[in-house]
């Protein structure tokens, strides 16, 4: 079938929509749900600006079909804050100047958030490895590493 009704839990809320089979998850989030925090930066699955959590794992939402997310849980950057309170990963990026233009930032935040869930004290090398699927043109990565380290310390 070329059209499907999908039910996806996004940032804790159940969302339902009828979508084309070919609709990319990133477009579902941005255009159908109007959650524009997740960005698109390339067309060959390289840049990672589209990173969201799918069932807790950071994935490139430009390379997932919306229909594949049916019945599953998605978390986007908009889901990091709780009742206006920033998550430590967000605080870290603000504190340590981990962003400049902000375009790669949601992807970095989601990857950083996921890393700290499985590794509460990552080394610099582990952080760099974890974000190696997220490209940034502005920061040169040094402060992004510091931002994640800040968040790790805060969460411990």
């Amino acid at each position: 079938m070329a059209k499907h009704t999908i039910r996806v839990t996004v940032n804790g809320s159940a969302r339902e929509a009828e979508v084309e089979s070919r609709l990319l998850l990133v477009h579902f989030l941005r255009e159908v749900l109007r959650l524009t925090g997740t960005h698109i930066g390339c067309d060959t699955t390289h840049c990672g600006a589209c990173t969201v959590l799918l069932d807790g794992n950071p994935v490139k939402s430009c390379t997932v079909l919306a229909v594949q997310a049916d019945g599953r849980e998605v978390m986007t950057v908009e889901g990091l804050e709780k009742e206006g309170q920033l998550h430590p990963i967000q605080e870290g990026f603000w504190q340590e100047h981990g962003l400049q233009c902000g375009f790669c930032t949601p992807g970095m935040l989601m990857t950083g958030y996921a890393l700290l869930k499985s590794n509460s004290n990552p080394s610099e090398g582990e952080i760099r490895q974890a974000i190696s699927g997220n490209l940034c043109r502005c920061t040169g990565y040094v402060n992004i590493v510091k931002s994640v380290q800040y968040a790790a310390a805060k969460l411990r």
Partner: protein
Amino acid sequence: MIPASFDYHAPKTLSEAVALLTRYREEAKVLSGGQSLLPLLKLRLGQAGHLVDIGRIPGLEYIKEEGGYLKIGGRTREAALERSDLIRGKYPILADTAAVIADPLVRNLATVGGNLAHGDPANDHPATMLALLAQVVATGPKGERTIPIEKFFTGLFTTALAPEEILTEIRIPIPPPGSGGAYIKLERKVGDFATAAAAAQVTLAKTGEIERAGIGLTSAGPTPIKAREAERFLQGKKPDGAAIAEAARLAAQAAAPTADRRGSVEYKREMARVLTARALQKAVQRAGGE
């Protein structure tokens, strides 16, 4: 970056999936991790009227030792392989390989089965599986059949899988004690396909000679390459510098890379040599030698 229209199916059982593939045959493509297929569809390269998503079928993700084999479910994510204590402890060659496939985000979705079934000589698992003498289990309308890995890669983007078959398991004979393996990849940056890469798996006798060697090469031809001459040469030899150097030289001879932005034919062939030597050195070290 927008794919052409297609129909999407999400069967809940293997037999449903096989039935769909049987019905749609060449018009259908299996969607496993989607990290090779979806990028192609987004660029509108490769047609697929029907996508058969095997992501809802239970029982296809596992890593276990059973009956003398390491068995990996076809839909096992690369990230799971990377994280598995069993793999890291006992099969570091597979941990090496998984760790250099694309990037960590892609590895959360990409599957081992998909990496093999895509038939791309630039994918990383094929060389490793050739070195390990793995077997591929294909499930089709007539049930399961086992395909030895040396017969699996038949051409560029072509494998021995029939259109109505799904790669459901990879079986690796558990190496005997005194074995070790390594995968070394040269890439222009993290996330790239290999400029060149080599997988080496050795088993050493108690007296130190190589009882068995397996060498696979990535991005070295239209299919993944098994460096048979190099393997044969190493049998019975002590794994010293000279033997490794000669085996590496023979492996490079088996390579027939194509020139592209990653390198000229000459450079890629030379790198096959350099990396085979390094992979062998590491494999021997892990096997308990030198």
